[in-house]
């Protein structure tokens, strides 16, 4: 392909990400699954990079879980979304950043629906005023929190204490990057790199010294799928998807996995234990699993945060193998100590997966 032509096509896959002044909304489940991620995001952007990221205690869930489980109608979700946007407007912001990929998909879908059906937008604006006494508004820019970390990846690299490099061999760490399906598969123009070449996590990995693993099932779903997981009898589908990905990435011997979705790291992390219990197989070598990180946790490690402050002790698959490779010093005794030295208790030992 002619270079100029390639450049022009690639420009279609770019996304405008404002530099500063954001209204931040959290995820329902990430705070329970990956306890330090959102705190790390706020600390990195606000305190390390000096950005204005505003958060209101009045914001709620986006309604995504109920929506994708078919328990509430689309109009209800749109009203919840309209309320979030109205809060942003009330506090004087135009840029909206969300922590969750499901939410990001819900916001993108809602904005597209309003664009295509203005009468529906007018109806939601009326419902919003009647129910919440809030003025309807739409964000000028909507980004996912990983977009922001991607935008500031070189600034983070400049402040890096550790790199994604094996300190013993000097070689780049092999990182599997997994993008949440709702990030750009539904609305490709809303994600960096679109649906075909999502670059948001690969860009971070490369900027911080790692090497991205390109394996056959790289763009396959993690297997979460709300309806697959919520019904216990259907969880085999979810597990089988994750198993397919691990079988595909195994020959490349990845050092870790990084994701930008609430569900993906949870399932890629927890299902390693279930696969080990059911088949006796582990994927990290020496009976261990492959550590799974969120992008905030990876950025935090690169910037020198304490792994236990990032909440890495709450992962099912232990992360010590990765910390050792990166040359991060950690205190084994304080792994299960909470705030103020409170004992969090020890997890049970699985029969196959080494911890």
């Amino acid at each position, binding site marked *: 392909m002619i270079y100029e032509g390639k450049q022009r096509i690639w420009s279609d896959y770019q996304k405008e990400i404002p530099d500063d002044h954001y209204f931040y909304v959290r995820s329902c489940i990430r705070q329970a699954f990956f306890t330090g991620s959102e705190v790390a995001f706020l600390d990195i952007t606000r305190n390390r990079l000096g950005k204005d990221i505003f958060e209101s205690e009045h914001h709620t869930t986006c309604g995504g879980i109920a929506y994708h489980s078919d328990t509430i109608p689309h109009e209800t979700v749109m009203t919840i979304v309209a309320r979030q946007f109205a809060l942003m407007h009330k506090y004087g912001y135009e840029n909206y950043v969300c922590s969750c990929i499901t939410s990001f998909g819900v916001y993108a879908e809602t904005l597209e629906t309003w664009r295509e059906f203005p009468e529906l937008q007018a109806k939601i604006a009326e419902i919003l005023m009647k129910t919440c006494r809030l003025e309807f508004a739409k964000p000028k820019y909507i980004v996912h929190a990983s977009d922001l970390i991607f935008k500031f990846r070189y600034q983070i690299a400049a402040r890096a204490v550790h790199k994604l490099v094996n300190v013993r061999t000097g070689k780049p760490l092999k990182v599997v990057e997994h993008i949440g399906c709702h990030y750009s598969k539904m609305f490709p123009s809303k994600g960096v790199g679109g649906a075909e070449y999502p670059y948001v996590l690969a860009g971070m990995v490369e900027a911080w010294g790692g090497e991205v693993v390109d394996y056959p099932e790289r763009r396959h779903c993690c297997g979460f799928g709300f309806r697959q997981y919520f019904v216990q*009898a*259907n969880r085999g589908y979810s597990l089988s998807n994750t*198993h397919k990905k691990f079988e595909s990435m195994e020959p490349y011997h990845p050092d870790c996995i990084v994701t930008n979705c609430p569900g993906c790291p949870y399932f890629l992390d927890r299902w390693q234990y279930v696969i080990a219990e*059911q088949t006796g197989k582990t994927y990290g070598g020496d009976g261990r699993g492959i550590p799974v990180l969120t992008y905030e946790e990876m950025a935090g490690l690169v910037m020198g945060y304490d792994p236990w402050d990032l909440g890495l002790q709450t992962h099912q698959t232990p992360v010590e193998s990765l910390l050792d490779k990166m040359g991060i010093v950690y205190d084994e005794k304080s792994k299960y100590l909470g705030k103020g030295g409170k004992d969090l208790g020890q997890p049970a030992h699985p029969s196959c997966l080494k911890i």
Partner: protein
Amino acid sequence: MVDFGFSLSPSSRIDLDEFDRKTFDRLLALEPDAKKCMECGSCSAVCTASRYTETSVRRALHALRNGCGAQAVEELKGCQFCGKCTMVCPRGINTRHLILSILKIYGAL
């Protein structure tokens, strides 16, 4: 072993590297018209047997191309050889004879 109440489903992926083409090549040598099939489904649409059984010539040919001979035979077991499929094939394939050949070569007859 922990009982989680669910388990891994076997993969339905077809590994074309393990596809034994010899039987399929024997069929193509006998019935070269099989290559012409575009899987339009006209044969299945008029099939009398398909109303009451799982018979589908289209699905059978699709299965053969993916190396699933046993599945193809299952798809054709209900065929009554009435020949209606031959009359409607837009590519002029003698599907009746093709079905007979598939069942012979893949050991069902």
